[in-house]
Each structure stands twice: as structure tokens, then as C-alpha cells.
């Protein structure tokens, strides 16, 4: 029965459904939550969904990870390495932004005792 899952189409389908539902969870979080930390978490969930989506769609059954070792001697039969490199970079960037956002949030909380973004409205005319 598990052969069923050993099919590229099926795996892609599952990845699309999974990542998209993850994406929309994040989306839901952005749309409904007002706590800064939750918003940042939602962003991270959305980003993760994208990473999953991207990496997943580049996987085909029978391919191996693009790491040169005993399984992989030549550049054949391996997953496209570019997305992996890209995603790695993006994760780092996402992490940086998340960290920055959290540090802003903390400082802001220290100053005002608030973390509700819809109540951040001191910048106005």
C-alpha cells in the first residue's frame, strides 16, 4: 500500500496540500492575530510553507540529495541543488528578520507594555 506513496505525483500532491494548508494557517494568523509575536510566528509559518512547497516540488522519486559521498559519485540522479541552496539562504534571512522583529517587539514591550500591533498608532498627524 505504501507503494502508492512512492509515486512522484502523489508526493507532490501531498506536499502541495500540506504546504498550502500550512500557508493558509499562517495567513489566518496574520489576518486574525494582533499580537506582534503571533504575527511574526505566522510569517514564519508562511515562509516555512513556502520552503516546503519549493523543496518538495523539486523532489522526484528515486533521486538523491545533491551531496557528493558514496551514493553520489557523478552529477546524475540527484535532486536539483539550486532550490536547496536558495532555501537555505532564505531560511537564514527569515531567521534574521524574525530575530530583528522579536528584538523590536521586546524593546517596544519594555517601553510601553503593549504588543498589540493594531494599537500601535502613535505615529499619526
Amino acid at each position, binding site marked *: 500500500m505504501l507503494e502508492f506513496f512512492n509515486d512522484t505525483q502523489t508526493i507532490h500532491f501531498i506536499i502541495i496540500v500540506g504546504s498550502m494548508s500550512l500557508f493558509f494557517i499562517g495567513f489566518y494568523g496574520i489576518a486574525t492575530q494582533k499580537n506582534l509575536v503571533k504575527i511574526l510566528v505566522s510569517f514564519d509559518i508562511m515562509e516555512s510553507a513556502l520552503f516546503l512547497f519549493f523543496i518538495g516540488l523539486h523532489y522526484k522519486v528515486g533521486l538523491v540529495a545533491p551531496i557528493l559521498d558514496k551514493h553520489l559519485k557523478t552529477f546524475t540522479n540527484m535532486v536539483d541543488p539550486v532550490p536547496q541552496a536558495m532555501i537555505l539562504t532564505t531560511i537564514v534571512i527569515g531567521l534574521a528578520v524574525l530575530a530583528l*522583529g522579536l528584538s*523590536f517587539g521586546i524593546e517596544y514591550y519594555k517601553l510601553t507594555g503593549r504588543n498589540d500591533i493594531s494599537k500601535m498608532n502613535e*505615529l499619526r*498627524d
Partner: protein
Amino acid sequence: MSLGYYFLLPVIFSFLTPYFKKIGLLRASSILLNLLLFLQTLVYTMMSLPQISLFSIKPPLGIAFILDGYSLLFLLIFTFSGLMVSLYMPWFFKANPRRDEARFYLFFNMLIAGSIGMILSCDIFNLYIFFEITGICSYTLSAYNKDKLGLESGIKYLIIGSIASIFIVFAIMLIYLQIGTVNLGLIAQRFHQIDPKISVLIVLMLFIGFGTKAELFPMNFWAPDIYQGSISPVNGLFSSVVAKAYLFVFFHLFYLFGLNSKYMLFVMVIGAITFLVSEFTALNQTNVKRLFAYSTLGQLGILFMAFSTNSIDTVSGALFHLTSHSISKLLIFLTLGILIHKLKSMKIDILGGFKSTFLTIVLVISFLSVLGIPPFSGFIGKILILKGFALSHNYAAVAFILLVSIVEAIYFFRIIAMMLDKSRAKVIVNVGVMNYAILAVLAALIVLFGIYPSLLLHYTDLAANALLHPTNYLTYALGVGL
């Protein structure tokens, strides 16, 4: 000499900031860096274009920086603005003593690097990385004042930036999934092969991503807040460097991907609405920074209208207008920095409450230039844009721009009248020698480009040609003949 230095030098200088701080050369180092970048750009103006610098492998597989006419003009603007701001900062820190100057310089240097990287990189993923570098630096810089307002603006900018980056990442992934490349040249070649529905999605995501950052209506509700919360030199950078960098990318991709025929009207309408709404909103402002933020948004609106026309003359005019707007807004925000410091307020009344003939003259020059009144540089840009619209028989746009410009004139001249009003209580403002020089140079440039426009038109024509007919760029981006 390599284009790589544009990124490498700022990074090196940024990493060396603690060391510079230790030896007390922080301010000087930043000036040196920006001077180096500016000089390098001046050298490039004398070389044949495009120029390419490879990192290990040649494109389309490898990473490269490409400098064509289009990016050269922006490079000139960015490095020049950077130089001016770095020259201005010593006064600023002397006037507002801070303990964490190093933090500013670190991110300031990186901001310049990121902006320049965005306009030089020839693959979309690197572009994204520079986009994020610019973004992170701007979040930090806008939160540089670690008070309520500063942090609030930083948080707001960060949230908006995250949304934009999600859209862009998504778009890049879709592009890679469809075409299997991130090289701009290859994407440009194969973009029409994408399934129309997916292509619409990609375009929309890129539009939202870059449009949000480039402060287009209705994605610009955050922008005035950011200007309000951050310090004046950073306002100047946002207005004349960062916003312009996003605009650069927007239209670079717009024309490279051949979207001009299909989406021209759409972008024009969005630009027009941005212009209209911003100028009307600006009328009602009492905070100087917000006021000029709205003015910036409005000018970006005109630029979007003009850039999307697909005609060399109009785009050249738009580039001229962009340059003169960058200079004017830099001047305005740097002057605001002086005034806000001296008068300890951000209300619009401070513009009527200072007494300094020099500041009055330079401000008036920049205002008139923004309004497009001869003999200042704004006029040339505006007349070229209007002429271009008229030539394409788009008289509605001509009428629209002129009508909204009157609204724009209302608040600019209200401020001028305020400055000239002798009945107001005035505080004598002494401008330091350095600021004197900076503002004088900026004002002189406005006048110079106004009475001798050929000087700048040479570059804008070059840029418009490179933007609309990117054949040379494409051959380099594809690595042909390297």
C-alpha cells in the same frame, strides 16, 4: 576594478565598524567609503557600458553584477546621496549625541550596499537577497531612535517588509518552478512560455512585493509612519535611495519580462491614484515629515505613470524627474533635520519659525523644483514627461498631472508663504559650514540641471535606452561572448 567592490567595500567597512569606533574614525570611515563608491561610479561614467563583473562562474549559471546605462544613473544617485548623507552625519551626531553611532554606520553602509546590489545583480535570487539586506537595514535604521515612535516605525516597516518578501519569494519560486532558472536574462527570454495564469500570478506577486516597498497606493499606508518615526537623514535616504531602488527593480523587471504592453495601463492608473491620493492627503498634514513623505509618495506616483509609458522620451524625462526629485528631497530632509533639531518640534510651523536666508533660499529652490517650475531641474523632467504623454496622445494623463500639481502647489506655497511671513516669531538658525556646503551643492545641482539639462539628459537618455531596449543587458546577462 570590479563592480563587486560596490558590495565588498561596504561590507568590509561595516565589519570594521567596531575597530573604527575604537580608533575614533567612525564618521570619517563612512565618508571615505561613500567617497570611494562615488568616485568609482564617476570612473564608470567614463567607461563603455554595459560592464560585467563575474564571481567565479559566468552567467547564466554564475552570479554576476551588470552595470548598464539604466543602473549607472541610479548608481550615481545612490552613491551621491550616500556621500551627502555621510557628510551630513557628523553634524547630526554632534547635535544629537548618541552612544550607538556605530549601529547607524553599520546599517547605513549596508543599506547603500544593499540598494546598489539590488540594481546591479543580474539574477533574481541575488536580487532578493539584496532586497532583504536593504530591508533589514531600513527596518533597523527607521528604529534607530529607540523610543516609542522609532520602534513603532521599525516594527511596522518590518511587518510590511515581511509581507512583501513572502510575495517575492513565492514569485521567485514559481518562476524557478516554471522556467528552472533565476538568471534575469533567461527569465526574460522564457517568460512568455509560462502558462498565462501562472504568469499573471507571478506578475501580481512581484507587483505586490515591489509595489508595497515602492510605496504604491493602496499598499502605502505605512509609508508616512516610517518617515515620521525615523531620523531626518534616514528620511532622506528612504526618499532618495531606498524608494528609488525599489522603483528601479520594479521597472527593470517590468521591461525585462516584457510586461509593458499588457500591464502598462494598470501601472499607469495605480501611479495616477497614488499621485492623486498622496497630494490630497499631504494638504491636510501638520507634521513636516509626514507632509514630505506624502509629497514623496505623490512624486513616485508621477514616476510610475511616466515609467510605464514604454516611450524613450517619457522614460528619459521620468528619469530626469527622478534624479531631480532625489536631490530635492534629500535637500529638504537634511534641512528638516537641522530645523527639527533647532526648533525642537516636528510641527509644520517650524518652517515658518526659522530665520536663515540661506535655508529659505535652498528650500524654496527645492520646492520649486519639485513643483516643476523653471528654471529648476524639476521643470525639465516634468515637461519631458508631459511632452511624452502628449506625444502618445494621452491627454488625460497630461490634464491629470497638471491638475493634481496645482493641489501640490497649494501646500508647497503655503509653506513658502509661511517662511516669508515676517509676522511670525523667528528663531535664528545658524547652519554649520559643512551643512552649508552640502545644501549649497544640492541646490546648485538643482539649478545647474535646470539651466544646463544636457548634462543630465545624456545619462537619462542612456538609461531610458537601456531600460526599454535591454538587448545589450540580455547578452551580458546570458553570458554570451564572455
